[in-house]
């Protein structure tokens, strides 16, 4: 008996059959729930598999919807036929390789920024500016014989990625500025910024995008207006900034007061204190909610469809909207949903991983 310490007792735990019994069959009621629940799960999985895989049609040889007549399963042929429309929108057909390359560049940028070597304000900023520049130049064209394509002609998944990346690139510096200004000791400035942040946060994103698309042409002089897409990206960035500023601020508030006081005592200037002491630690504190905000923001890019942009959801609507494929709406929405799902799910898994990793560091 004395030879067993706590760890060993815990490691022994209940046996497999015992824990199974406890989890599923501890009482008659529990057994019934397990059986019904298990049957329901099996039925869901079977129905979905049956629809999506076993009874589905994947390709259309002649490009029409004839192959899908009278089948019970999914008609993935619509994706085979209209997939390019969903991914690239109305981007010129011969130039779609550029759109692909640009997306790959953005994807590489996103993956690289998950590598710890880049976790430093300067490197991260450089990485994203370069990645975004490559994306933009590839898409825009107009040099070396590449066809020039204006942003208003971009579409599909590429446009979603563009608005997302641009919105965050615009929004992140704004968020940092808002968070610092809101903590300012000068009441006028902190009050004004607090009002701005709270105001933006209590408005729906659509109204902000709408205002950006409609009001700015009224109140800005002509030379400042720019294309509608830039105004919408600004609105999108502003909305992101209002939420992210509060996340950064809570990260700053979680710091022990001694950190800033010690920096002051050492005679560091405001700029030095902020960039070397406060912000790095604040970002570390705020990392989990920041990733969460990135996830939410990605889902919110889909709202630009309402101010008339042809992003992936709108191109999905167009893919089944016209005539012969109109019966295949479920397939198209499932496909578009899967695109979002892959992005969002991997991002949130990465966030969970980071959270675990940080907990190890802090015990």
């Amino acid at each position, binding site marked *: 008996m004395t030879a067993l310490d706590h760890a060993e007792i815990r490691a022994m735990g209940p046996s497999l059959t015992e824990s199974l019994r406890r989890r599923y069959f501890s009482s008659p009621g529990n057994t019934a729930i397990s059986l019904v629940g298990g049957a329901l799960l099996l039925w869901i999985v079977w129905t979905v598999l049956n629809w999506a895989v076993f009874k589905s049609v994947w390709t259309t040889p002649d490009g029409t919807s004839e192959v899908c007549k009278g089948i019970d399963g999914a008609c993935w042929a619509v994706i085979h036929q209209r997939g390019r429309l969903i991914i690239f929108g109305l981007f010129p057909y011969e130039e779609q390789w550029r759109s692909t390359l640009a997306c790959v560049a953005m994807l590489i940028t996103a993956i690289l920024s998950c590598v710890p070597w880049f976790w430093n304000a300067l490197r991260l900023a450089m990485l994203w500016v370069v990645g975004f520049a490559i994306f933009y130049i590839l898409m825009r064209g107009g040099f070396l014989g590449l066809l020039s394509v204006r942003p208003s002609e971009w579409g599909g998944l590429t446009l979603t990625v563009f608005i997302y990346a641009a919105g965050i690139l615009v929004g992140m510096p704004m968020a940092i500025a808002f968070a610092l200004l809101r903590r300012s000791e000068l009441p006028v400035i902190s009050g004004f910024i607090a009002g701005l942040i709270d105001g933006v946060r209590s408005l729906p994103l659509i109204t902000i995008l709408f205002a950006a698309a409609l009001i700015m042409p009224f*109140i800005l002089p002509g030379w400042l207006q720019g294309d509608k897409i830039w105004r919408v990206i600004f609105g999108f960035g502003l909305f992101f900034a209002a939420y992210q500023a509060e996340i950064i601020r809570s990260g700053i508030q979680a710091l022990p007061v001694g950190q800033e006081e010690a920096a002051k005592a050492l005679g560091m200037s405001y700029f030095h204190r902020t960039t070397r002491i406060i912000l790095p630690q604040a970002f570390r504190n705020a990392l989990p909610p920041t990733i969460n905000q990135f996830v939410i923001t990605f*889902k919110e890019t889909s709202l630009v469809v309402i101010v008339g942009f042809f992003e992936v959801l709108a191109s999905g609507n167009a893919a089944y909207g016209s005539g012969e494929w109109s019966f295949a709406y*479920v397939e198209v929405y499932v496909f*578009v949903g899967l695109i979002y799902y892959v992005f969002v799910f991997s991002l*949130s898994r990465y966030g969970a991983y980071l959270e675990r990793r940080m907990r190890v560091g802090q015990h």
Partner: protein
Amino acid sequence: MLKTRKARAWAIQIGFLAIVAFLLISSTLVARDTLHAQGMNSGFGFLDRSTGWDVGFSLIEFSPFDTYGKVIVVGLLNTIFLGIIGIVLANVVGLTIAVFRTSENGALNAIGTLYIEIFRNVPIILQAFFWYAILTHLPRPKDAYNLGEVAFVSARGVYLPGLNVTGSSALIFFIALVLGIFFYIWFTSARRFRSLTPSAKKNGKLTIVGLVLVIAVAALVMGRIPETNLFSIPTLKGLNIREGIRIPPEMSALAVSMAVYGGAYLAEIIRAGFLSVGKGQAEAAEALGLSPWYVFTRVRLPLAFRAILPTLTNQYVWLFKATTLGIAIGFTDFFSVISVSINQSGQTLELIAILMVGFLVMNNTISFVLNRVNKAIKLKGTQLRT
């Protein structure tokens, strides 16, 4: 002069204000020029003009001859109506899934996790489009699903039995009920009421319930549409379904997507609330001999609710904002009414101002009320919470 810290602070703040003022004034001037160049009048006079277009769904009577002011009220009421229904449904879904997720049963856990992983990771607007497409591809009224001859489900909407009363009186009915419930809670939790004898308490409660019911029913009776039956049961006549209350697919699609998507988020919050309730609390309740139902409703749920109310408040505000998706599928909510009005009347600046003020007021009301509730119910003092 700028040597002292105080003087510098003043200078910076005045400079900041000057920049803000400059931006405001210059944008107003530009706006005036733009409006002038387009030959438009500014001001809120257009609110009295008649719209000339109809709305798809309205809680109160509306015709194309009614004014812009009224159409905005229609939109506001629709938004509030949808918001309440969506939030209530999302709570039901969220609570159910949270119970699944925290249950000791592995099969229920799996269903809860599957639900959350699927519906939380897909944008709500996509879900709204999806449900709308599903609902509008249901059979036509002629072949509608018949639920026991009193309710029908078809592509034109869900038909439910109802009363033959005007929209406004139904609205007054619901407002009276909601206010009555608030009044009841406020009255019964007052200190003077608690010190009454049990029989006086009972009388007091009955009086309030009676009063509220009389007012609510009176509103319905006053609003009866003459020369019709009081009850309106949907029936299939020819190619269409007559009578009854039609819930249009736009409305159902939005309510379903708010419930499904919002429910997935609420479930995680409620689950966190359940996990925050110390195990000792539930075990103590069990040791006292409370049944599982009582342990859940009297111990775990109230404690969890107190722990998560601030987070829930944010989530409700956020869910309420999701009603603006109406414009994507054609539900006449506040936002889409404003948007159509902008197209029709051209009074962009005024209408956007109304839109923003409307949302600021509504969302701040939600958070104000819930923050007051939070203050009233939060655990006082420094109790041992485990």
